[in-house]
Every structure is written in structure tokens, then in C-alpha cells.
């Protein structure tokens, strides 16, 4: 069935999409273009001089084994953040969906963490897992486990993943909860009459029906883990120990905003843009085929 609206002429359609075009232009194409332009130079921080280096910034970055290693770190980090923020969200949504009494209260509490800013969430988790004053670290110590994320790379990664995912669980919960409400009761009842137990109904009926939501959340969460997590990393680990939690976007921030190396920082954001763009295209090309709308 053709859902498209067709217009005669081009003035009205242009006018209708103009606001979106302006927003994209001002907040995406202009800064992105500026980043591409800057990535070809090594400027001094004060903007007094610029050295044209062609692709020199990219050569410099890609020949650095530490920069290449941070791609792997980023991949591990994003995969974990995506999984840790989506699976518990789905689980909680399914449970909340079955509530009869007090559903509103549960819902509100589950959504709450989303209102906490990433850097603040970082500090909260830092307080719990701090090697000196952290209550969790203290209990782990009682159990005989020497918790030390300051030097242990896996523990540091685990901590930033949990801290980055925690607030996201609420966000994902919200979407899953809404999607569950839209699953037609009749289909589920029919399956129940046929003798399918809850989890079987969930995996064969509910989960496939949720696939558009899952796909949307997958894309959004990966983008989130690539771009918006540097506040958490900055407050908890600062990229360490060694380079265990230096993800791409954190390096953009550290080199550009702290280190004043604007050429390298711009080149890094261009690379990041390409990576995320490519990932999104791949997702739409391959994963979306398995989505049933």
C-alpha cells in the first residue's frame, strides 16, 4: 500500500522540511564540515597560525598503535554497554508489564535513574566502588577480594560499563514497556490456550513483535556509548589504568579540550563520525532485515 503523499511543485515540500534542514545545517553539517576542514591542519590553540598538513593528522593517528588499540577498547566498551543497558531493561519491562498493583510506582522508580547526568552517575558509582571509602569495595574486601580498579584493567572497564549503562536501563525500559503494551493480547491468549508457557510465549511471540523497538534501541544505544559516555570515564578512570578505558570519544575530548591539540582532535572526530556512520549503515542493511514491523 502506497503511504507516500505526493506534492505538485516543490515550494511547499521545501518549506515543510525547511526547519529540519536548517537544524541539520546549523547543528550538524556546519560543525561537521568545520571538523573536516580543521582536521587538515595543525593549528596553534590561540588561532594565530595554521599549518596545512593534508592528511598528516590521520597518518599520525593511524600509525599510532595506541590509537588503533582504542578502537578495540571502544568496541568492547560499546558492546558491553549496549548489552548491559538493554537486557536488564527488557527483563524489568516484562516484569513491570505483568504487575497488577502499584505499577505506576514501580514505573516511576525504574525511570528515575535516567534523570541523573552521566558525570553525576559516574561520581555515584565512584563513591560505591572507591578503593578507600567505597561500600562495595569494603564488602568485597570482607569476602577476601582485593578490589583495585586503579590498577586492574578489567575491573576499571567493568566499572565504567556499569556506570554508563545504569542510567540507560531506564531509558530502554521506557521504550520496552511502551512496546509491550502494544503487543496484542489476543495473540498471547491464543498461544496460552494452545498451552504455551510464559517464557515460550515470550521468546516466540513477544520478542519478535518487539524487534522494531529492539532495533531502534540498538542503534541509539551504540551511538550513546560512542559519544555520550566520556563524562563517566572522565570522572571515574580518566582513561586509565594504562589505556584500558580510553575510548575514542574520550581521546577526542582529552586531546582537544584538555591538550589543545585541535588538529588531532578534529581528525579523530572525523574518524569517529565515519565509524559510527558505517556502523549505522551496516545495522540498517543487515540487522533491519530481521526486523518485522
Amino acid at each position, binding site marked *: 500500500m502506497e503511504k507516500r503523499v505526493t506534492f505538485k511543485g516543490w515550494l511547499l515540500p521545501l518549506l515543510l522540511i525547511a526547519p529540519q534542514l536548517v537544524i541539520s545545517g546549523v547543528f550538524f553539517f556546519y560543525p561537521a564540515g568545520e571538523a573536516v576542514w580543521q582536521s587538515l591542519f595543525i593549528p*596553534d590553540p590561540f588561532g594565530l597560525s595554521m599549518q596545512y598538513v593534508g592528511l598528516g593528522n590521520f597518518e599520525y593517528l593511524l600509525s599510532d598503535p595506541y590509537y588503533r588499540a582504542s578502537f578495540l577498547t571502544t568496541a568492547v566498551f560499546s558492546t558491553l554497554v549496549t548489552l548491559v543497558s538493554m537486557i536488564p531493561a527488557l527483563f524489568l519491562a516484562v516484569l513491570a508489564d505483568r504487575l497488577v498493583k502499584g505499577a505506576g510506582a514501580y514505573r516511576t522508580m525504574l525511570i528515575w535513574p535516567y534523570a541523573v547526568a552521566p558525570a553525576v552517575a559516574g561520581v555515584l558509582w565512584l563513591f560505591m566502588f572507591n578503593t578507600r571509602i567505597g561500600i562495595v569495595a569494603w564488602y568485597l574486601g570482607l569476602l577476601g577480594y582485593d578490589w583495585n580498579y586503579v*590498577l586492574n584493567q578489567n575491573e576499571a572497564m567493568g566499572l565504567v560499563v556499569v556506570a554508563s549503562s545504569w542510567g540507560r536501563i531506564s531509558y530502554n525500559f521506557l521504550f520496552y514497556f511502551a512496546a509491550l503494551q502494544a503487543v496484542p493480547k489476543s495473540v498471547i491468549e491464543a498461544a496460552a490456550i494452545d498451552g504455551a508457557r510464559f517464557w515460550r510465549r515470550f521468546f516466540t511471540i513477544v520478542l519478535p513483535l518487539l524487534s522494531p523497538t529492539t532495533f531502534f534501541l540498538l542503534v541509539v544505544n551504540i551511538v550513546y556509548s560512542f559519544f555520550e559516555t566520556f563524562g563517566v570515564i572522565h570522572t571515574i578512570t*580518566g582513561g586509565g589504568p594504562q589505556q584500558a578505558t580510553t575510548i575514542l570519544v574520550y581521546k577526542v575530548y582529552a586531546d582537544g579540550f584538555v591538550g589543545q591539540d585541535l588538529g588531532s582532535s578534529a581528525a579523530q572526530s572525523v574518524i569517529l563520525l565515519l565509524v559510527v556512520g558505517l556502523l549505522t549503515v551496516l545495522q540498517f542493511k543487515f540487522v533491519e532485515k530481521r526486523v518485522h514491523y
Partner: protein
Amino acid sequence: MKNFALGALVASSTLLTPFAAFAQTEIQFWHAFTGRLGELVDAQVEQFNASQSDYKVVANYKGNYSETLNAGIAAFRAGEQPDILMVFEVGTATMMAAKGAVKPVYQVMEEAGVPFNSDDYIGAVKGYYTTTDGKMLSLPFNSSTPVLWVNRDLLDKAGVAKDVDLSTWENIGPVLDKLKAAGVDCPMTTAWQSWIQLENLSAYHNVPFASEENGFGGLDAKLEFNGPVQVKHIQTLGDWAKKGEFIYKGRRNEGGADFRSGSCALFTESSAGYAGIKAEAKFNFEVHPLPYWADVKGAPQNTIIGGASLWVMEGKPAEDYKGVAEFLNFLSSPDVQAKWHQDTGYLPITKAAADLTREQGFYKENPGTDVAVIQMTAKEPTENSKGIRLGNFDQIRTIIDEELEAVWSGDKSAQDALDTAVTRGNQLLRRFEQANR
């Protein structure tokens, strides 16, 4: 784009500032001090404003050191720079290379006809912020140097005799063994590992941290901190870490809380830790000079400073600079400096302020507070010990942090880690050289 946004923000906030005084010239001063230090700065500014009627200094807190530097840079790009910008020592090379953005302090003073003699300043403080021919580029403001903080109660508990000499690393080793054996969780820790265990270590033993007089001689400096003295020191710390005697707490001064709460026995940290330790420590603490390796010839030389200095920005009206000169002159006066030194634990930046503090009997009443001053001034600084001036230094420090963490966790040997840090750091130096050609 981040800079653009920041610039716009800065610009708009400046526009919104009401014009309070018409006859007075306003001097904008951006700094990085909050809390108690912020109050002390405000008090200095108030005192200056009350002392004359031609100028009004307006002090603004712009976030931590990095954020303040960024705010200054963004503001300069937007043409809305302050008259005076506080920049931490790591940013010195960045500011120095920015000809056309900063106005050297000696020039500001000269043009305003304010008497100014850079020899009034303590050698090691002066050296950090002057050109190779002795011209002062920025005004030293808050300077500190690393010392050894000791929890005497823990040492007593471990049976360490009171007269054990803690001035050399050779002597520290057995003390750590005793502390460990007595069940002390954290025999020793450090703050700012690059600054204390590499930069100051190099200066203190009169070995180069980088070529070209640690970067003072030119932008083509190369890192040289992988020499035998540094390797031996880092390897020793690494061995102590393996034995659980040197406990790594983090890249900044995380260890401070552990020392103040009484869980760490020895702590290498800035002399400016004094105020906090004095306020919080519920045990007998002592200040000792930073230990050195007795087998290195010429050690101990002098340690170098950390902290910040005040840079005067270009592009302001001429009458501003007269006021800036007056204000800087006021800040360096013995009274103001002596008070600052006694309140904060930062070093007195002028010899007159140090003398005044001694005359006032402060060192007698607060034993140990002059340790840092003596450590800095005992010898005339050499080209290895007057300071460090390297571009991209903030990132080089991050690289050093990363590589040292590999030593503390036992992943790399000291030689291997320092060699790698030198190679990686040199790439950043070459980039800085290119950017400022």
C-alpha cells in the same frame, strides 16, 4: 566547535556584566581557585581595590586549571580575553609559544614604569617563568614543590626509631619493610607521579628530563627521562609495589585522603598539602625533604615547582596595562606574599616574603613549613633543575601516567615503560614544534 560555543558563551557573559564603576578601569582576572583558596584570592583583590581608586580588579573563577586555560583561549579567539589569566605550569610552553596572544610581564612592568626586578624572586621560581636570558614572561603566583609527609604514629607503631634518617631512598627501603611487617596497609604512596617521581626526581639529581635545557632552549627538545637514575628509581618503586609497600592510589592526589585518614605512613606530595593535612590529620605528622639517591653524584640538587603563574593577555586598551602592572606589583609585595605563603603552604615567591615570614616567627611556630623553601633554595638551579618547558605537556604527562601504571601493575619493566613513554612523548613534541613553527 566546542571552542566556538565556549567563545560565544564567554562573549555573552562579558556583555552582560554591568558597568558598575565609570571612572575606574576594570581589570579582568580569571583564575582557577575555588573554596578556601578562592576566598584568599578574593581577599587579595579586595585589598588591592580598596588601596587605590583608579582601577578595579574583577576576579572570576573559571573552573579547574585546564578549564581556565581553555576559557582564556576561547575568549582570546572571540576577542574577549581577560587582562590576566592564571595558567598552570604545564601550560607554560603553550602560553610562551603564543606570541601575539600574551604580553610578557617584564614588558608590562617596563611600559607602566613600575619598578620590577626579577632577581627579587626565588631562583627556582623565577627560572620556571623566564626566558633563557632572564626576562620574566609571567608572574609566579602559587608555587609549591614536593616534600615527604610522614605519619609518625605509624612509624612508631612499626618500631622505626625516631632518629632514622628519612632523607635518602636507600634508607626508605628498610623503613617500608618494617611498616609492612607491622601490618601497615599502605606503607607509602604518592601524588602526581609524573611531577614528583620523574620531573622532580630528574631535577633533584641534576639529570635532564629533556634535551635543550628541559625545553627552555627551544622547541626541538627531546625527552630524556629514560636515563639510569630515573630507571633505577622507577624500578625500585615498581619492586616496592610488588611487595605491597608502595601503593598506587591514582594519577592525581587521590593518596592525600589516605594519608590524612591515617592509613598511609609515607606520602610524597606537594608542600601545599599542608593546609589540608594540618586541618584533618588526627595523628602526629612531620614534613621531611623529598628523599634522594645518595649514590648519585651532586644529589640533592634542588626540586622544581608546580602551581600556576599569571599571564597578561594582548589586545587590551593601554590604560588596562597600567592597572595590571599595579596589581601584579601589589601581589608580589612582601606582606601579601608572606600572608599567602603562611595561609596556603605555597612557597613565598620572593626572597623578601620568605625573610618576612621568618622574622614573624612563623617557621618556629609551625615546624617543617620551611622544609620546602630550603629544599628549593639550597642550591642555585642548574639547566636540569630550573624547570620544564615542553609543549603538549599535559598529554605527555598522561602518557607517563599510563606507562608508570604498567610498571606498578607489573606488566612492564621500568626501562621498557620509560623507553616507550619517551618515544610516544617525542611524537607529541614534534607535533607541537610543527604547530608553532
